[in-house]
């Protein structure tokens, strides 16, 4: 019988939730790394027992933890994230130039073909790669040459929060950076270019041709169709059918097109999920109703999924890395909230239940589907 393992990063530790394919009864382990902020936990698809976790606090800095037994035991690996060469500067809040300073690792993306290869997206924004299971890290510095001097931090810091690896083309990578934009490499990270044509950020970026400065919140793709990208931007839900060369809006009938995560159904590449948030200044669901919205048409036409979710007095947020899907026959959808709930839908979003109610604020949710 198949099993699912949900990897949850929170403000005060990591939790691992496991269940069989019915996804009704759950075993909860944790907190792992109690008291530390766990921005992201993700397993290798090549070796599911290999799991990486980003562990940090403002007090003691950054660690990377690795498990080789499915999260039962952990050991710290390398945590030296040194920018390559002359560090350089980026734009600061007051318009002056400010030196790059490492703060934390936001995202860890294991390679789909080699369990020892893993990428890290960091704040201040840069991408690093390890070829030895996280023991050592080297920057792919060309990314910061993609007009990095124009990047500036958003409210959450200048973080590289999304890394997508094209499973059909090892040379192609996508990244997204808050308040800077989306970027693509077609040569394994040796060179990068902005992938923002068609994004509109009218108030913040009066120049309609601006390549830099779009606040991309997250991007998702389906592995069978990696040229099709879905984006939740600060405002607007967007779609690209040409690997980010051009984007068009697919917000359609959403009650708000502001939000953070976006996810794609495991077996239906045109079925996508978002969680609308009221606005950039009110980070909670519209009308106090927690609703996931699903489009089965690749965008524009959305339906509210509410069965099992609170429909009054709900004022949590769902952060950018806090939604994921499993790949069981009946696709499971998962998301975590800043109120500490982790919800599961074992039926593609039709019905929801809370696996846990009272964790610390959830920063990230990833799912492993195990044979």
């Amino acid at each position, binding site marked *: 019988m198949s099993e699912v393992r949900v990897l949850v990063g929170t403000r005060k530790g990591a939790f691992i939730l496991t269940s069989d394919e019915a996804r009704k009864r759950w075993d909860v382990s944790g907190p792992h790394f109690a*008291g*530390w902020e766990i921005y992201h936990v993700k397993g290798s698809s090549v070796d599911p027992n290999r799991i990486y976790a980003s562990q940090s*606090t*403002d*007090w*003691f*800095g*950054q*660690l990377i933890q690795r498990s080789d037994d499915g999260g039962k035991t952990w050991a*710290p690996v390398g*945590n*030296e994230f*040194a920018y390559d060469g002359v560090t350089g500067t980026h734009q600061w809040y007051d318009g002056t130039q400010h030196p790059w300073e490492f703060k934390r690792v936001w995202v860890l993306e294991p390679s789909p073909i080699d369990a020892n290869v893993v990428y890290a997206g960091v704040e201040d924004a840069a991408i690093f790669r390890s070829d030895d299971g996280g023991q050592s890290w080297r920057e792919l510095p060309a990314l910061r040459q993609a007009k990095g001097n124009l990047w500036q931090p958003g409210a959450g810091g200048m973080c590289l929060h999304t890394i997508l690896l094209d499973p059909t083309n090892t040379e192609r990578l996508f990244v997204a950076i808050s308040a800077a934009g989306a970027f693509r490499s077609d040569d394994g990270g040796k060179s990068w270019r902005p992938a923002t044509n068609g994004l509109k950020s009218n108030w913040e970026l009066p120049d309609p041709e601006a390549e830099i400065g779009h606040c991309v919140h997250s991007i998702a793709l389906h592995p069978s169709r990696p040229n099709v990208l879905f984006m939740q931007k600060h405002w607007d839900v967007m779609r690209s059918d040409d690997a980010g060369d051009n984007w068009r809006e697919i917000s359609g009938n959403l009650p708000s097109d502001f939000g953070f995560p976006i996810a794609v159904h495991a077996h239906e590449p045109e079925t996508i999920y978002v969680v609308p948030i009221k606005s950039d200044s009110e980070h909670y669901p519209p009308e106090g109703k927690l609703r996931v919205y699903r489009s089965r048409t690749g965008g524009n036409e959305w339906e509210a999924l509410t069965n099992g979710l609170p429909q009054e007095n709900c004022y949590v947020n769902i952060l950018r890395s806090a939604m994921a899907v499993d790949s069981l026959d009946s696709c499971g959808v998962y998301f975590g909230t800043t109120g500490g709930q982790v919800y599961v839908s074992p039926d593609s979003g039709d019905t929801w239940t809370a696996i846990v109610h009272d964790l610390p604020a959830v920063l990230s949710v990833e799912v492993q589907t195990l044979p």
Partner: protein
Amino acid sequence: MIRVVIPHHLRTLANVGKEITLEVNDPITQRAVLDALEERYPVLRGAIRDRNTHQRRALIRFFACGQDLSHESPDAPLPAAVATGEEPFLIIGAMAGG
């Protein structure tokens, strides 16, 4: 022997108890103590001070003998009572909320 007390999270990380004893060569300074600590427990590199510049992390404080030594030069001699092992060198996570 120099006695060093480290905060809870770093004890967990280094898998040690509250107090550590270290052999430190003279002169007994912050830098010499932290060098010896990181040599013994490499996992602490970067957690107390920047691993390259050796600048104290912003929310770390150093105390000994009832004095805040956080802003002292890393090369200033520590109090004699620390050097003799009579008093511990305290590494503290700053009170900063959260």
